[in-house]
Structures are given as C-alpha cells and as structure tokens.
C-alpha cells in the first residue's frame, strides 16, 4: 500500500515536471482578459521573512499582486520565506514553474536573485529595495528620504504646538529604526533633515531596535524604546521599523503622543492609536506596474525604476481624524516642501 503511494507520488512529480517544462515556451491558457490584455502571465511573489501580516511592506506588495490579479484576471502565487535559506529555493521554484514576472520582495534577496535571474534569462524578475545588475531584473527602489523629510517637517512643527497629544514646552522628537543599515538610515537622514529645516533647535532622539532582522519584528522592544523616548520629552515619534513599530503605537496610545507610521497608511490599520500620518511607500504600485508591464509583452527589462514623491511612489498619508488638530500653516509648509522636492529645489540627503 505504502509502496504504491510512493510510486503514485513519484509519477505525479514527473508529470508536474513535464508540465512545467512544456508550459515554459508557449502558454495558451485562456482566462478572460481584464484591462491589461495579456492574460497568459502568472506573476509570482517571494515575500521576505516576516511575511504576510507585517502590516508593512510584505502586505503592501501582496496588495499589489491582488490588485493585478483582479484587474488582469490572472492567477498569481506567493511564497513566504522563513529563513534566508528559503530565498533561493522560492525564487527558483517560481521561475521553474513558469511564473513571470517573479518579484523578490526585499533587499535581502539581492545575491540569490543575481544568481537565479541569470539561469532564467527568459523570465522577467524584479526586486524591491535593491539593485540587481542583470538584464532581466527590474529594480524597484524608492526615495524614502523624501517622504521622511515631510514627516520630519510635520514632527518638527507639531512638537511646538499644543494639542491633545503634543505640548510646546519641549522640542524633542523621536525616531525608531528597525535593523541598523543603509536602508533605514535613508529614512533617518530624511527625517532629521526635515526636522532641522523647520526647527533647528529641536532634538531628534534616535534608537534602533537591533542589528538583526528580528529588529523589524520586536514590538516589545519598540514599545520600550518609545516609552524611553517619551520619558525624555518626545511627543511625536516616527518609526521605520516594520512590525516593531506596533510597539510604538501601543506606547503612543498609552502615553498620548503622536506616532508617524511607515510603508502603509497605518492610521487605517491601527485606528485606536494616535497615528498622525504615515510615510507611504507604494510597494503595491511598484508590484502592480511590474506585472502590468510584463503583461504588455516585450523582452525582459533590466531597468531601475526609482520612485519618489514625484512618481507617487512615496507619499505622505492624509492626517485623517487628526486633520483639525494640524494648523493650516503646517499643512502649507508640507505642501511647499513637497513642491520643492519634486521640482528639485530641495535636495534631501539619502545617508547620514
């Protein structure tokens, strides 16, 4: 009995391999097409550690996939990674099975993708937050510092106001980073420059949660760091720390200060926390547009798509329910700065 089961599964495996092999060249699958036209594409997503439910950029990328699936009537697939060992396997698996495009969500996959994209020259790859120098990999990078600069302006001005959540007596704001490294330092640099531009004597408290990826997934530490910063006078804290930031939201709610979210419009995700605004990074758009461009056909591309405020890849979320607590001049200053960045008058630093 067991023997037969083994045989059956082996046979199935062979069949699967055969199918995948044939399917590689010409695919005639015919789901009725949506807007884009090319319904024969199968987008695949490899998510980073943290995976779905991080209420940050994995979720955002997944939302982009969902949107593409709906609009183009295609059926995509996503794979979660539990360890760095998984990246290569996941990417290979998708490419081998004929998925196209294959999108690596997260800069940690840079090395693996460089190798694998060379093995599958016909497949369009893409990577979020990193640059891979192969002719068939699109680099989906963002100028996070631009949005962070706007967040800095909001923080630097609001800490001088008296509201339900801020007091004017101490000019201290906070920054909560996830894993130390250049990516998050882009956020920090933009934020600090933004604060500096409107409040030169403001103090920016900076603390990172750690040097490992767990630093993106440690709300407990996020909360403790936030509470420390609050006790040092911070009444508005911006985080770029993934799930660690949920600890900030807890602390903000408890101590009645403002938080600034990241990646998604987190005020919508955490309605009970005082999240003034968020620096939204449209990973979903990047994913969606990549799928869209593949669906339009043509050779795989190796371009770098750099998105900032101008390309609407980065934006500052609306103030939402706190809108009436934000004075008009703050809103004006934010708008001016946005203009300035888009037309190049303001140069935002991208490193410390």
């Amino acid at each position, binding site marked *: 009995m067991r023997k037969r089961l083994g045989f059956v599964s082996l046979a199935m495996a062979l069949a699967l391999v055969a199918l995948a092999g044939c399917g590689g060249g010409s695919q005639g699958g015919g789901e009725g097409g949506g807007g884009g036209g090319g319904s024969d594409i199968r987008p695949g997503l490899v998510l980073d550690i943290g995976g779905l439910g991080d209420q940050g950029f994995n979720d955002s990328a997944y939302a982009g996939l969902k949107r593409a699936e709906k609009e183009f009537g295609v059926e995509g697939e996503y794979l979660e990674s*539990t360890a760095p060992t998984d990246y290569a*396997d996941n990417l290979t*698996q998708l490419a081998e099975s004929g998925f196209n495009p294959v999108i690596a969500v997260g*800069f940690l996959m840079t090395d693996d993708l460089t190798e694998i994209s060379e093995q599958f020259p016909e497949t369009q790859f893409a990577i979020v937050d990193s640059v891979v120098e192969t002719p068939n990999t699109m680099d989906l990078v963002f100028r996070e510092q631009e949005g962070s600069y706007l967040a800095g302006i909001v923080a630097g001005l609001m800490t001088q106001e008296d509201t339900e959540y801020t007091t004017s007596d101490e000019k201290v704001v906070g920054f909560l980073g996830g894993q*130390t490294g250049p990516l998050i330092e882009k956020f920090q640099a933009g934020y600090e420059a933004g604060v500096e531009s409107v409040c030169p004597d403001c103090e920016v408290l900076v603390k990172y949660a750690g040097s490992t990826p767990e630093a993106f997934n440690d709300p407990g530490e996020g909360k403790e760091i936030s509470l420390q910063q609050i006790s040092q006078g911070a009444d508005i804290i911006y985080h770029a720390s993934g799930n660690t930031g949920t600890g900030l939201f807890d602390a903000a709610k408890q101590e009645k200060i403002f938080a600034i979210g990241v990646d998604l419009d987190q005020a919508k995700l955490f309605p009970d926390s005082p999240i003034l605004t968020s620096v939204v990074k449209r990973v979903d758009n990047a994913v969606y547009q990549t799928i869209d461009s593949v669906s339009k056909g043509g050779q795989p591309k190796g371009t770098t798509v750099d998105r900032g405020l101008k390309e609407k890849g980065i934006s500052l979320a609306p103030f939402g329910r706190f809108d009436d607590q934000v004075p008009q001049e703050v809103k004006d200053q934010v708008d001016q700065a946005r203009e300035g960045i888009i037309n190049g008058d303001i140069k935002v630093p991208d490193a410390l």
Partner: protein
Amino acid sequence: MSEGRREQEGRDPLLRRILTGAAGALLFPLLAILLSFAIGAVIVLATGNNPVAAYVALFNGALGDPSAVGRTLLNATPLIFTGLAVAVAFRAGLFNIGGEGQLFIGAVTAAWLGVSLGFLGPLAIPVVLAACVITGFLWGSVPGMLKAYFGAHEVITTIMLNFVAINFAYYLAQNPLRQEGPIPGTETVDLAARIPAISFALGRANYGFFVALLAAVAVYLLLWRTRRGFEIRAVGLSPGAANYAGMRLGLNTILALAIGGSLAGLGGGVEVLGTYGNMDVPFVANLGFNGIGVALLGRNHPAGVVLGALLFGGLYAGAQEMQFATDVPLQLATVLLAIILLLVTATKLVEFIVGKRARALASGAGTRLERGLGS
C-alpha cells in the same frame, strides 16, 4: 525453573541483539515519525486541507526530482554538523544547546578568512575550514570551562552564549567585515575559494555534504576508536567510574563541548564557503536547535545523525513544495518535527503501542534480578 532459565539464556541474547541492532535502534524513531505524520494528517484535515495531497507534495518537494534531492541535501548538510555537535557532547553526558552560536562563530571565521585568503584559490578551502574548526573549538570550550571550573550548568550557558555569539558575529559582519552596498553582510568569497556544487541537476547542493559525511565518520572513529573517545563515553555513562579509573572529568567535559563546538563551527564554515558565499545579516536560523532533534532522532550515533539530518532536511525542503502546491502553511514542517521530538524519547509510549512484549525485551536487562545468571 532452572530449565526455564536456561531456555531464556539461550533465547535472550539473540532477541536482544536484534533489538539493539539496526532494527531495534530504528524502531523508536520510525514509530515516532509515523505517529507524528498521523497526528499531522489530523491537523491538516482540521484546517480543511487534504492530507494526502499535502504529504504527496511534501514527498515530491523532498525527493521528487533531482533538484528536490539537492534541496534536501543542502538542508541536511549543516544539520549533520550541528547534530554531531550535540551528539559528541551528549556522549559525555552534556547537553550542548550552543550549536547555533558555535555555527555562527565558524561562519564568521569563514566569511573573514575566505575573503582574505581568497587569493589562494581552492587551496584556501581546507585552510579556512581548519580555521573554523579551531574557532569553533575555542568557543565551544567556554561553556566547558564554565562548567568544569565554576559548575555553571551547560544548558543555560550554551543558550546564553548563543545570543552572545550571534550578536558578536553580526557585529563583525556589519562593521569590520562589511561589504559595500545596501545589503548588510560580509564581502563575498571568491568563487575559486568556494566549495563547488556537486552537479547542476542537484541545484545548489555542494561538496559540503561530503565534508559533513567525513565529519560523521571522524566522530565515529573518535568515539569508538580513540582513547579520547573512550574517555568521553566513560565520563558520560559513569562519571564515578571514569574518575575512579583515573580519567579527568573536567578535561573531558571541556573537550567534549569544544569538539562539539568545532563540528558546529565547521558547519558554519561549510555554509559560508559552500552555500552562501558570505555571511549576510540575517544569516541562518534554528540550525543549532534542529541539530538537537537530529541528534536525538539519530540516538547520538553519527550514522543516526546523518539519517536524522536527511529527514529534517527533507521535511523542510518538502514543506516548501507543500506550501506551493496546497494551502497548508509552511509551519506544518516545524509542527511535525516537534511532534517527532516529543515522541522519540517517550519509550513508554512506544512500548505501550508496540506491546508489553517488546517492552520486556527492550528493558529485559534492567528488570533482571540480582541473582540473574550467576548462581
């Protein structure tokens, strides 16, 4: 009565030999594996999935085609090392939970020397791996010394040292050894100084697997063919008798943990030179802890460790495919492994299932009364 006893004498050794032989050694792990798969099937059913489909996918992902086999070998390789690291210490009566940290020490050593000795080409490989053995040895000796000189329990110290080692390795990887660019990690070792892949069909599986097999053979020889191994086993089984026989308990404690450390360290080196080419932050996760399971499943015997590592490696490789082909979450593999571990030493339970007869045979020696065979 005496007749009955003689009959028993004639029959017992044969049966016992069978039980302690290959079949006997595999009986408990195999039953544990089967049972856990049965429990896993119930869990899969409860989540509204088809367990047959899930297990077929699991099997395919582990052994279904050459690249699946390659993934299994790739996953198993570091687990052989960390499993051996646990097994050697276990033979000395010590519980080494520090495999993770020891592996990181070896890995960061390889990441550093692999780059700086890259000019040596393939010659660098043995040099770098030897260095990993040494740093792993030194790091592993720390809990040994803490135990021998201060009486600090190795279970706690090895766990704590894991955190220290990982943080230390990450510090080196992110600061002095840091590569250019946005990805936190060390520079990549020159391709010439890397452990080559076995064949294209097997994917990224590399000759590191054979290094692991060699390490298993070495551990076998160490334990059963050398003076040191004799001492380690004697100390592990009976510290009192070992001390009485003139063996130094402290020294053997330190050495057993240090040798374990060197094995895990070598594993870290093989991961860097073979699989990854450098040490990124984050690096690998849970290899040390899974090594415990591998060692226990393999009854702390090198051959068993290799088999256990292949099972673990296969399960993780298969889970990937399972996640892909069905809606069963990846974590089922971890759950299955946990259940296997839970059951594998529960001798009473397995005896309960197999029946009292097996139990009487398996523990026959233990229940024999003092008078036994002599009078």
